[in-house]
């Protein structure tokens, strides 16, 4: 079902755990299967004065694909400028993992969403203007999270 690269990241995930005193935290749940992902980011500046993602860590509740996508997004984003990270797409995850089963594509979206939410949280905390690209995605993700909460509640009744 999974290729070797996915299994390798699942077996030996990179950058897992919490960052103490993070600059941004993104927490997302998946409406489809109930997985939960939490990304922590630490922001600093490079020599050119650009903001970069200096550190990133994850905590994930979910299947092998959810863990592997969490692990690889930390590799892909660590050290990138914030501007580049804002453009991040889940396709980069799929490419870097060498493919995911069709039914698990949503795990890569979950990871990309978690990054978006962490960046959104960073901007919110810093009370700076939030770029449109981040806000738009944030609105979609919030809607998804609400739907998921409803679904959980219905099932738990």
């Amino acid at each position, binding site marked *: 079902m999974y290729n070797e690269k996915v299994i390798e990241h*699942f077996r030996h995930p990179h950058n897992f755990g919490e960052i103490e005193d993070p600059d941004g935290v993104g927490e997302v749940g998946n409406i489809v*299967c109930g997985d939960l992902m939490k990304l922590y980011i630490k922001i600093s500046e490079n020599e050119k004065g650009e903001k970069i993602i200096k550190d990133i860590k994850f905590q994930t*509740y979910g*299947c092998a694909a959810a863990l592997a996508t969490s692990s690889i997004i930390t590799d892909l984003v660590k050290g990138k400028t914030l501007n580049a990270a804002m453009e991040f797409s889940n396709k980069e995850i799929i490419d870097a993992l060498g493919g995911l089963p069709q039914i698990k594509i949503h795990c890569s979206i979950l990871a990309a969403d978690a990054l978006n939410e962490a960046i959104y949280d960073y901007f919110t905390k810093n009370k700076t203007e939030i770029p449109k690209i981040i806000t738009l995605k944030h609105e979609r993700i919030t809607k998804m999270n609400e739907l998921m909460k409803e679904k959980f509640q219905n099932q738990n009744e």
Partner: protein
Amino acid sequence: MNKRIYLDYAATTPVDKRVLDAMQPYFYENFGNTMSLHEEGRKAKATLDSCRSNIAEFLGAKSEELVFTSGATESDNLALKGVAFANQNNGKHIITTKIEHAAILKTCEWLEKHGFEVSYLSVDQFGLIDLEELKNTIRKDTILVSIIYANNEIGTIQNMKEIGEICKNKEVYLHTDATQIFGKLPIDVNKLNIDLMTINAHKFYGPKGVGALYIRKGVSIEPVLHGGGHESGLRSTTVNVSGIVGFSEAVNIAKNEMKEDEIKQTKLRNYLIEEVLKISNSRLNGHPTRRLPNNANFSFSFIEGESLVLLLDDRGISCSTGSACSSPNLEPSHVLLSLGLKHDQAHGSLRVSIGKDTTKAEIDYFLNVLPDVVERLRKLSPLR
């Protein structure tokens, strides 16, 4: 430990060597078609007859009351569709439960699309149906009740005797899917008032691709497979003689060893449950005592079942899960949700099913590995 530890006997079992030996001559030396007039055909037919009466006797049934099929799914389809279509003039109402195998549930959904009405009985926290609810659900137009004897995921064994009495008094046919319990515990279809019963071979050391449906004499039923008229016209297709020989031999072994296996496996299973529940935030799913001797089903909070199964697999252990992540529709097990488990509890479930060859050393190895694996996944999880 270098060798694999297989703890998924509820999925399938290895073929017993004695079963394989019994089957060997029926591929090359005795290969005849049971419908042929010549000697090869007659030999095949004689073999088929003796296997049929052997398996029937094991159930307390008559030889002619057993129809061979390709397995439990086909038997379930034949029972439900066959009885529904043969009895639709008496009514179009069928009763089943929320915790059936997909072979029953999907067949019921199909029947609903074809004009039948199906009621799904709920179960309590242990997976048992409410007998009063069953009584109250049976109507004048109810033609069939189908209730899984022992559940494939949680191993809960229904009160089949009481269910049989209710159905008999209300004069409605009772079908049971006995796939998981057959060959493990004794069943007498007459004492239990069962009218139709699904059984198969590969869950108790027989070959895959062979099963049967017990149909009490007098039950009106239509075939699903039409053709050359095999199995008294109820299941056309050339008979799988080698498979049926294997099925029959598995029954012979069960006759002699079932009791001993039950005692041994129950003891081992109870030890397993006791030890696993020492892990914090773990729970046993299903009934504490009314369960299959080889079944244990757990939930571990804060972690997900597919990851658990794959990490155990890495350590050489085979188990299964009712997690949404491992299902084709990304929904968690309908059985676990029916018990009232929350979404995340069903998501973090692990089924451990032992068998004839399971040793205490294997269970100890599993018990040694499991807390490690659970702990590792909990470290990765944002839930606490």
